[in-house]
């Protein structure tokens, strides 16, 4: 899949901007804080209907503006053309349409436009809190499976309802044990489907990750496992384990007014030769691991969707270089369309990109223009 063009209206620091992309490499350059990353954010938003910087909709508006619009044209691998429009009015909800047809569910867009992003913020996956790792997992798996996305949405909804009920019980507004039982059953059903899906995924993904990681550290072995509040033996047992875990926290839940165990408390454990990277990893190891993780994500998504994902690199040129030199790809050609940002124009010069066209775009104070080479 490639993105052919994008136009912004009152988005971040752009009043209006329009760009046509090449299907090869697109380099957006210019001084920092002039709006390079905003472009990547807008592309990401078209594909997944959310900001990778986890910003609120209202923060995406240009200064005093009350609406923003992003318009993008994508060409899928089967050559069909999809025009996505995201429109937001202050205090409202984002409205999204594909080929002029309004969509009312995220499942109509997530996964149809596979995308992988590498940005400085992504280092939080290996070094930040558990929620960063769950976020990585959920964004990838939601792109891969619509049922996973649906289960996740349902689980989160039930969790909210159940927590509200637990709070009511804690504050002794009413001790509605009978309806708590109902929400608990729902939580176990949807939650177990999520646990099983994650478990299956991690088992195969950990192998892919390790084979890529070995290109960076020949003698190192990396392993990826799930740390869960729920004992995981086999698929059939998950519901029972979940029920047991909830039961053992029965009292605590009622005191804290919140659900204490479940996939919403999962964490990912990265190890290198048995050592917990989150705690003890060196800066170099974090970097090798993150790049391996992103290549593995790219490969996995490509393989599952049978559609070449779009790759966004936010000021990660040195990482791209390492991907090229050590990655699973024969050449950078294997990466499909790339859109990257950098403060300097010449970062791709004197490198082996001769077989790929590079388009250059210069960003300055909320304007962007294509520069002829």
């Amino acid at each position, binding site marked *: 899949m490639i993105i052919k063009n994008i136009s912004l209206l009152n988005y971040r620091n752009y009043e209006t901007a329009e760009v046509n992309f090449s299907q090869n490499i697109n380099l957006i350059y210019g001084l920092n804080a002039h709006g390079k990353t905003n472009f990547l954010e807008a592309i990401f938003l078209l594909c997944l209907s959310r900001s990778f910087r986890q910003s609120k909709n209202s923060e995406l508006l240009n200064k005093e503006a009350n609406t923003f619009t992003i318009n993008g044209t994508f060409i899928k691998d089967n050559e069909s053309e999809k025009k996505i429009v995201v429109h937001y009015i202050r205090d409202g909800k984002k409205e999204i349409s594909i080929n002029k047809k309004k969509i009312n569910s995220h499942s109509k867009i997530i996964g149809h436009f596979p995308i992988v992003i590498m940005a400085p913020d992504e280092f939080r996956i290996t070094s930040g809190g558990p929620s960063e790792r769950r976020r990585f997992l959920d964004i990838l798996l939601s792109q891969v499976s619509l049922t996973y996305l649906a289960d996740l949405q349902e689980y989160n909804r039930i969790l909210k*309802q159940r927590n509200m009920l637990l709070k009511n019980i804690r504050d002794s507004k009413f001790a509605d044990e009978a309806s708590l039982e*109902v929400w608990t059953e729902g939580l176990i059903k949807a939650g177990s489907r999520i646990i099983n899906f994650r478990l299956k995924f991690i088992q195969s993904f950990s192998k892919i990750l390790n084979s890529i990681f070995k290109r960076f550290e020949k003698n190192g072995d990396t392993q990826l496992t799930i740390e869960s509040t729920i004992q995981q033996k086999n698929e059939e047992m998950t519901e029972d384990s979940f029920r047991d875990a909830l039961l053992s926290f029965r009292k605590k839940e009622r005191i804290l007014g919140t659900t204490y165990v479940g996939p919403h408390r999962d964490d990912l454990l990265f190890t290198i030769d048995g050592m917990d990277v989150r705690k003890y990893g060196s800066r170099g190891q974090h970097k090798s691991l993150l790049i391996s993780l992103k290549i593995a994500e790219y490969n996995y998504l490509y393989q599952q969707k049978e559609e070449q994902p779009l790759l966004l690199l936010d000021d990660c040129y040195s990482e791209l270089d390492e991907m090229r030199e050590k990655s699973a790809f024969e050449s950078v050609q294997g990466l499909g369309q790339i859109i990257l940002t950098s403060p300097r124009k010449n970062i791709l010069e004197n490198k082996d990109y001769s077989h790929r066209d590079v388009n250059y775009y210069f960003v300055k104070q909320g304007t962007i223009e294509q520069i002829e080479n």
Partner: protein
Amino acid sequence: MQYSSVSMEKAISEFSKLPGIGRKSAQRLVFYLLKTQPHEVRSLAEAIIAIKEKIIFCTVCFNITETEPCKICTSETRDRSVICIVEEANDVLAIEKTTKFKGLYHVLGGALSPLEGVGPDDLHIRELLTRLNGTTTEVILATNPNTEGEATALYLEKLIKPLSLKMTRIARGLPVGGALEYADEITLTRALEGRMVI
């Protein structure tokens, strides 16, 4: 801006309180009514007042009605052994359109949702249980197939089970006239889960 007529201003502000009607639409409606025949406007006004004065909730099934109990509850031709449980009165309307269901209804008045402060006591569940006496042999759980509707159905299932009545949940699956390839993954999964032996 200010209108030269207080009545005009009042009418516009009343209309714009309605869902989906903004100030501009309200203005258009008022101007339209201004040009309409007096008897037509009167008939509209009477219809609006009748909503509040004549329509009541049936004390048996909690469907909307003008007679007490409602026409369905008193009908001689309905099958009194089956009760179909729905969330809202407009769900009754939807099922009635099919003309396939000949039993009685029970309108809960919503679904369980702690976030919106709706618990079992806020729904017409107690009234339902008192209805499930000798004549009822089957209940159909027809709450919405969303998170809250499913939770409500499960709650009722647990409550009604000891009464050993026949209990069914409406099926969910593929829309009629749709091709399989256009159905989304989730609908298809649910349709496969609920498949039937033929």
